[in-house]
């Protein structure tokens, strides 16, 4: 069996490198969410860091919410919210530094029939992805809005 342990229904996967400023937004976000003590039985919050392969983290999830820095060419701090299907088909925008790892892992799961039923990406346009442990003020400001969107998505999936 591929899936020895039952996977939770909803997964929040934060991705990014904490050492590269705004690139670490996904990790800052899941840390914040962990402090919230959210009361959903089927929710798993994962700090994926810069792991290159996520397949076994998220296989068979009912809903996968990826939180990441997204380079879409808009103003720093701009929030993006889209379904993975758009990116899987024609890669319309450049995601974060590790975009291919996420896409490859999901592609692999799709090919073996283990992909999450619904995957969305919620991200923020970074300002600074140079070495540093701090978020830029623009991106920091977006964290609260990001949280609101993610909570709505969790509620939708949980209902």
């Amino acid at each position, binding site marked *: 069996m*591929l899936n*020895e*342990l039952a996977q939770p229904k909803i997964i929040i996967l934060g991705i990014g*490198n*904490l*050492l*590269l400023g705004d690139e670490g937004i996904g990790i800052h976000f899941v840390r914040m969410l962990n402090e919230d003590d959210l009361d959903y039985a089927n929710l798993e919050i*994962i*700090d*994926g*860091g*810069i*792991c*290159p*392969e996520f*397949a*076994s*983290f998220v*296989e068979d999830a009912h809903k996968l919410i990826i939180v990441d820095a997204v380079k879409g060419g808009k103003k720093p701090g701009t929030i993006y919210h889209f379904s993975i299907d758009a990116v899987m088909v024609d890669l319309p925008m450049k995601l974060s530094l*590790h975009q291919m790892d996420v896409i490859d892992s999901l*592609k*692999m799961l799709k*090919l*073996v029939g*283990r992909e999450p039923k619904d995957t969305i990406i919620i991200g923020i346009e970074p300002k600074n992805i140079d*070495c*540093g*442990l701090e978020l830029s003020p623009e991106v920091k400001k977006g964290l609260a809005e990001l949280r609101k969107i993610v909570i709505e998505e969790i509620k939708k999936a949980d209902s």
Partner: protein
Amino acid sequence: MTQLNINVHHVTRVEGHSNITVNAKDGKIKEITWAITESPRFFEAMLRGLNYEDVTWIAPRICGICSIAHSTASIQATEAAFGVQLSEQTMLLRKLLYHAETLQSHVLHFYFLAAPDFLGVGSVFPLVNTHKELVLRALRLKKLANDLADLIGGRKTHPNSCVVGGFVKFPEVSQLETMQQRLTQAMDDLKETVKLFKGLEIPDFIRETEYIALKDPQGYAFISGDISSTDTGTTPITNYLEMTNEFCVPQSTAKFSKHNRDSYMVGALARFNNNYSQLLPEAQKATEELGLKALCHNPYMITLAQIVESIHTVEDSLRLIDQILARGLTEEKPDVKVKAGRGIGAVEAPRGILFHDYTYDDNGILIEANCVTPTNQNHNNIQKDMETLVPRIINKTQEEITQMLEMLVRAYDPCISCSAHFLEVKFV
């Protein structure tokens, strides 16, 4: 062969960005370079000024594939600086956690990154149609390794339960027993892996070089022991700078290394060449089946050494869990007393020997750091391999030469994202 002009920008299926350039005219080689183009990261500078506990959390973020290696090297450097004594239980858990990463990384490499070369396809994706069982096996092994990392390290990647002086979270007996069953079942998957790879054609290329790895009389070393060279014998890890001798080259943002010869190799094959007699029985059997004999001087065999090591890590994990269960787990509290000093941590990351070297002040604030990664140590050996290989295959087609060079680079399983860092230059 009249003209050869190979420019591979961003070699695929390696972590990070790198280029291969070969120029030849009328059979005469003008240029062969292996270059790292990824922008440098200033990890050492970032660690300076941090409290030792923060250093422990930052270090695993250096790399997503070998975060447990960076975590362990970092923790051991701090422990050496403070003179922390570890319990037997901590060492057993640390070794077990470490095996999880070796397995995670090796499976990723031999199935997802190297196997497509040997099976004649461009990536792992086409294998889903032609070799579905292979892909499912790879995912099963990867999941097992991730779950072992999670059980002992607190997370599948970037561990958070291992700290300076010990652990802050401990597995349940029932979880260890379940893991033991899964590890036992995984041996079948690994035996199938041996069967698959022994039937594949490995390029025949020999270039003698020096092999450097940790060596410990207690067993096949991953997180303990002295530095061992197949040329010069052993030396304590405190002498690591005499082994690594990092230097800059014009074509690369990463540093290169050399020791007794013009280059040396670290990683699975270097470990095998230094420590083959300490492999556990099933791993020994696999070496025979795969035709891997020490000293092996064919870098394309690194992939096979990784398969052998994967079997060893599963066998040893079973032994370690037996020992932990037999002695019982207690919730020990780490006992750390901060003091000024310098300490060096050396571990065998999946790609080879990794050093973290820290100096702390009286308050446990890091004032100096140096990190020497295995991929940096291998760059020079890759360059020398290419310089030897290309003249031997110069009469092949440009496509064949390119393929062999890319396969060579991939065999080393380089992790370039964390190997790139600059020298600190002071202008006066």
